[in-house]
């Protein structure tokens, strides 16, 4: 394939896919270790009501109000889960289930009630996004990468996910030691003066930011998959946190690129005419990687801990 075809049609979706995967996998490492993996699931469900409310309030489909709405909904959900868990003395999983399903139902209802037929806002789009449509029309070939005029026409989603990735990476780099300490031994972290509860909340917020930026480009299903699958697979490969983060980034890049290529060209190789959903394929590939790691990974077994019944 020549550059004149690849750069405008496939380069930006591929890059966005990879950046999204990495931005979600980084906080995902900590969430998986802290047994909060399903926070990602909850956040990606409540993004829908947030976006619908933002649309109803502003009346326009624009990026910033929607991202604010989604982030606001994520914060509301986290606070509600915590409140219900404490006030009702309910186990966290059930509290989470109550909150995110109800908020999602509210979002669907609002969507049906309001007149959104004229704009591109529907549940299917929210679920599996539209990675394939994020093309770079101004590009003509590899040379466009150095052409300021063409660069100005880059899909805005790419810039946004780049900012989100920088934010997520910066947070983890800045708070590396406290994050590591409070993830493995919260009691000890507290005794050395780390505000573990605040840090935990900040981590969830950072995850929400990554989820919202990613959701904008690729839909929520890939967000859940990238929060959990690459870190979980990485956990089977190594016993150190640094190693796990390295592996998870590698797995995220691998599943995004392989998934995108398989979705775009796999059907053609098999003789079919049309491509399949890239977001779905990326999630599937990450699952394959997890399956391989769970079967053959060097550190897959639970050591020292008793098997639960």
């Amino acid at each position: 394939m020549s550059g004149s075809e690849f750069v405008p049609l496939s380069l930006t979706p591929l890059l966005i896919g990879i950046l999204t995967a990495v931005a979600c996998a980084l906080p995902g490492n900590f969430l998986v270790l802290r047994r909060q993996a399903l926070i990602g699931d909850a956040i990606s469900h409540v993004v829908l009501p947030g976006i619908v409310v933002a649309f109803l309030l502003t009346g326009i489909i624009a990026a910033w109000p929607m991202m604010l709405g989604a982030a606001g909904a994520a914060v509301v959900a986290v606070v509600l889960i915590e409140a219900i868990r404490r006030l009702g003395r309910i186990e966290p999983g059930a509290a989470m289930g109550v909150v995110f399903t109800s908020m999602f139902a509210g979002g669907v209802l609002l969507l049906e009630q309001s007149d959104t037929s004229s704009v591109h806002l529907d549940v299917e789009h929210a679920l599996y996004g539209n990675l394939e449509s994020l093309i770079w029309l101004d590009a003509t070939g590899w040379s466009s990468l150095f052409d300021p005029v063409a660069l100005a026409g880059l899909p805005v989603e790419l810039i946004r996910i780049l900012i989100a990735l920088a934010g997520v990476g910066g947070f983890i780099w800045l708070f590396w030691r406290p994050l590591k300490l409070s993830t493995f031994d919260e009691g000890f972290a507290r005794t050395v003066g780390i505000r573990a509860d605040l840090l935990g909340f900040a981590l969830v917020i950072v995850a929400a930011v990554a989820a919202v930026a990613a959701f904008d480009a690729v839909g929520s299903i890939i967000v859940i998959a990238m929060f959990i699958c690459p870190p979980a697979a990485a956990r089977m490969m190594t016993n150190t946190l640094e190693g796990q983060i390295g592996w998870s980034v590698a797995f995220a890049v691998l599943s995004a690129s392989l998934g995108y290529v398989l979705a775009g060209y796999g059907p053609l190789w098999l003789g079919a005419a049309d491509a399949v959903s890239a977001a779905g394929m990326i999630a599937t590939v990450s699952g394959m990687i997890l399956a391989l790691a769970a079967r053959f990974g060097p550190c897959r077994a639970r050591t020292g801990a008793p098997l639960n019944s």
Partner: protein
Amino acid sequence: MAGGWPRRRWTSWRACWAEAMLRDALLLQLGYNATLVAIGATLLGISAGVTGTFLFLRKRALVSDAISHATLPGVCIAFMVMVSLGGDGRNLAGLLAGSALSAWVGLLCLNWLTRNTRLAEDAAIGSVLSVFFGFGIVLLTVIQTMGAGRQAGLEGFLLGSTAGMLWADALVIALGGACTLALILLIRRPMTMVAFDPEYAAARGLPVYRIDLAMMGLVMAVTVVGLKIVGLILIVALLIIPPVTARFWSERSDRVVMLSGLVGGLAGYLGAAISASAPNLPTGPIIVLVAFGFFAVSLLVAPGRGVLAAVLRHLRFQRRVHLRQGLLALAQGQPIYERLTVRLLHRAGLVRADGVATESGRARAAKALRDEKRWEIVRADQAHEAAAALYDGLRDIETVLTRDQIDEIDRRIGGPQEVPA
């Protein structure tokens, strides 16, 4: 304003009309389809509520999330198989069989991951749900490109679609719900035991792993049955919210199961009726929101575990502490500056408005101080160790010791002594 009154007439007419529609819907008089949906939703709500209770008590509520998302590839594969065999592709029983199969595969993956690898259950749930759902979406896009026009309706399984429900569909749902309830009736005792104490159940010789699997199988059955009405994303709500709601009202597992079935059934029935009474009210989300309404009310007003009850309990406790401290201060002749304490003492008739103790106030204060001295003796004496453990600064000593024991302690304290002038 000139246009004022017709407009008001119009809105009030609309309100009347909506009310009449809702009444008709609640009485199942809105036509064939609405009645089918209402009956189906009620049955589904009951079986989901009952099944979900065991899942909730086992603290594995979110496993249902993985199971429900794992149904999607099965639905798509069943559709493709039926089309390639020359069938219609939209046969509900066939689609449900396919969804059950892939949900079962997802469940086995989940169990394998938690048992054989170091992953915690939540990570296993998340990975199974996202991977199966992603794969299902890949298959959905394949279907969209294969037989144009015939795929209509598969997206309906995401959020449920009750518009074109057929008699046969309702029959499938009713039969599935009834079978689930019957199975639960059969294995409710071992399931309860495993839910509360898996180690004890294992020691009693129960096959814990297989009972867990049976529990998950029931959840899967409910999920599959509910796909048509509420869809795979929201069925989780029907499995989680009714049990959580019912838990507020009782501490006995059998009652929680019954209440949860009741809440689920009511939510299904009311939700279906409300959604039939007006356009643009999708059935699944309305059912979930009705269930959430029950939950919110229970969270607030339930006796014992509710928020309101907790607040009242706290206020009562606060009052006792203030009264006690106030009485001790009176007895020792110390002035009381704390406003709430003075107000409480005044309301009880123990002090006058200016803070001086009344006759009964002095008597109660003396008693409080004497009780405090008695407790001091009790807590210093090894023989009263069990009673001393109950000391919390508020408990009346008469509720802990017998009359004779208190007399014995009083002898040790001795009577009032003369103070040399």
